[in-house]
């Protein structure tokens, strides 16, 4: 059992949870993830470890409520528990040791990016973070990233920071020159756009792939992705890969496999909540 010791709402659908997991907190490296299962009958969900505190024995998870299972996790309160937290899984990030890194985060991807930004800054690398969201309320972790270097914020509606997509801001940085590496984490279309943008500049670009997984140990092969024409498993060979080798079209496509199930599950959840609300009303009446 893993109690939640801290909870913070970062954006309308992203929650930060600090969870007890002493062993993982001790050995985890940036870029690695865990698989969590809330309780009996629950789904196994891969989540990047955003931070760890080996002394307190806790890890930090940033969760975006998209499906029924992630919504269950984001509604957890302090004192409640997650039954299973398995990890750390995946390979650690290949960090550059010096120079200038541009780190691009979109949506909840910014949370996945944070540990990489921190580790780079600790290495003495100059970091410029470029983060985006639909509008101001969807921009997360700006202060934490600012503690590690420059931050450029972009919003789709111009309600905060630059008006427009992160790729435009990235282009300006690439044109200015001196960028040694780019790390980009976010929705597949964003990572694809970043990859296409950096390629002509010949800048080494790393992306983190959020493929569908069950076990996270290489056993099911559900997370297979095509890298430079070869099948790889995101869970054990990744989750991070050289962006210029990734078949993003295939990844985007495979991520839609369970779309209709996800919609049904959300509808069921909403239905149950509605029924629950009715039951409460009846009791009150």
């Amino acid at each position: 059992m893993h109690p939640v010791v801290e909870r913070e709402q970062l954006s309308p659908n992203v929650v930060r949870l600090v969870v007890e997991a002493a062993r993982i907190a001790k050995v985890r490296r940036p870029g690695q993830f865990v698989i969590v299962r809330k309780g009996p009958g629950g789904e196994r969900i891969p989540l990047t470890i955003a931070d760890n505190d080996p002394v307190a024995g806790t890890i930090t998870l940033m969760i975006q409520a998209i499906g029924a299972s992630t919504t269950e996790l984001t509604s957890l309160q302090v004192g409640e528990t997650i039954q299973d937290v398995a990890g750390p899984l995946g390979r650690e990030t290949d960090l550059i040791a010096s120079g200038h890194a541009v780190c691009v985060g979109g949506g909840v991807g910014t949370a996945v990016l944070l540990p990489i930004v921190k580790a780079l800054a600790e290495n003495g690398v100059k970091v410029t973070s470029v983060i985006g969201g639909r509008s101001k309320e969807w921009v997360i972790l700006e202060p934490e990233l600012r503690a590690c270097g420059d931050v450029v914020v972009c919003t789709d509606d111009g309600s905060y920071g630059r008006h427009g997509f992160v790729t435009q801001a990235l282009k300006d940085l690439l044109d200015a020159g001196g960028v040694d590496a780019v790390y980009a984490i976010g929705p597949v279309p964003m990572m694809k756009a970043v990859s296409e943008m950096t390629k002509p500049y010949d800048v080494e670009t790393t992306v983190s792939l959020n493929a569908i997984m069950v076990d996270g140990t290489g056993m099911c092969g559900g997370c297979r992705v095509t890298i430079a024409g070869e099948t790889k498993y995101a869970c054990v060979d990744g989750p991070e890969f050289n962006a210029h080798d990734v078949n993003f079209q295939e990844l985007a496509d495979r991520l839609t496999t369970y779309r209709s199930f996800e919609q049904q599950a959300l509808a069921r959840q909403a239905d149950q909540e509605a029924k629950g609300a009715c039951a409460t009303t009846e009791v009150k009446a």
Partner: protein
Amino acid sequence: MTEPASQVPAEADGAAIPDKTPLTNKERMTIGRVSMPEQEGEVRAQNFGEVNLGLTYQLAMMEAERCIQCPKPFCVDGCPVRVDIPRFIKFLRDGDLPSAAESLLGDNALPCVTGRVCPQESQCEGVCIRTKKGDSVAIGYLERFVADWALQNLDQLPKAHPVLTGKKVGIVGSGPAGLTAAGELAKKGHDVTVFEAFHAPGGVLIYGIPEFRLPKDIVQAEVDRLVAEGVKIEVDAIIGRTYTVPELREEYDALFLAVGAGLPVFMNVPGENFKGVYSANEYLTRVNLMGAWSPTSATPILHGQRVVVVGGGNVAMDAVRTARRLGAAEATIVYRRSEEELPARKEEVHHAKDEGVRFELLTAPEEVIGDENRWVTGLRVSSMELGEPDKSGRRRPVKIEGSEHIIGCDLVVVAIGTRANPLLTGSAPELKVNEYGYMIADEYGMTSMPGVFAGGDIVRGAATVILAMGDGKRSAQAIDSWLNGVWPPVSADAKEPEKAEAAAG
């Protein structure tokens, strides 16, 4: 309807059965082999309930009378864990179920499991003396009967109170090899901890073998019995990530690595990453471990209407029969050799046929076909014929030119085997592995790291539950000897008798 084994008549309790005149061997030879009561094919293809219902008390007693108690029983030699088969059958025949159970459990840590999933026809039953003139004794059915009785009457079995040794043994993997070793070592008084990567123990018994062949509450009960004997289980522990082998070696006096052969093998044909192509590992794990057979499961599964399963082993049969139960109108096995070479247990093939599974034999996949949204619509295949025997002794399938055709389907499950997972070995460079990544162990199961033993699929390659259990049992003997400072072990039980032959399994 048949009555479950739990409802045995009152006289079956203890040894209080009235004296009866023993049958002569000649009389025994006239009794025909019992048939296993089972759910009807068409009915069971619609549910996940167990197919084999188990023998009734009367059927079991009648079958027990068929054993002629050979003085030199071949069946024991045919059993990878060397269960003293005539002994437990004799107790059963005498109506002494507690003694039958004690005898069986003393030899086999997971008899409820092996009674259901062992390929008896090629082991104990295959060498039974009665096969010379007809059918063997139904040893597997009797094992299951006694084991199921034991599970429900634990209070009638003597409790073991081993002297605690204070020695700590770490076991990696809670599949059949790991659980068997855990049981044996706990019996000898060692302090045993089993590490499991998944959230539930049992390994392939939980994620792989379906409910209709091995109910999950049976596996859980076997695990619970080990826990009651003092075995500790740590789930969510991935060795190679959560802990490394050298770390564990420091903390434990000996280790047994039994992680299985975890990586799925794919066909390596175009279109394999289309939506609607699963490895058997993923398909079965979603259904069995994650419970996706239930419509309200949090874990989704694609329900194909026309499902093709590529492969001919037990895993392929499990997958194709699962597809039928998930509502597939058409469920087809595509296998590149002929029926004779199907590696699956005979009973599984027979059950699959009863359930309406189609067999496209001498057929090999060439390409997965998909629509514009990259959903599977078919499998392009070629017909094969059998040529000269290959290294395995089986005749090699050869493609018939111009025989290509498409089998229409909306789901493809690939069940053509597994290979070694490098996750654990990658964290311990001292562990020697062969060119395929399987661990190298000596005749006592010891790896290149002193005090670190290995067994099951990670040593022998994909094999069976019972061979893995045999490794677990032998390695436990060897580990016990190692812990007692006796090396090499004196006991013959610690040594693999025919290593070369087992490797071919």
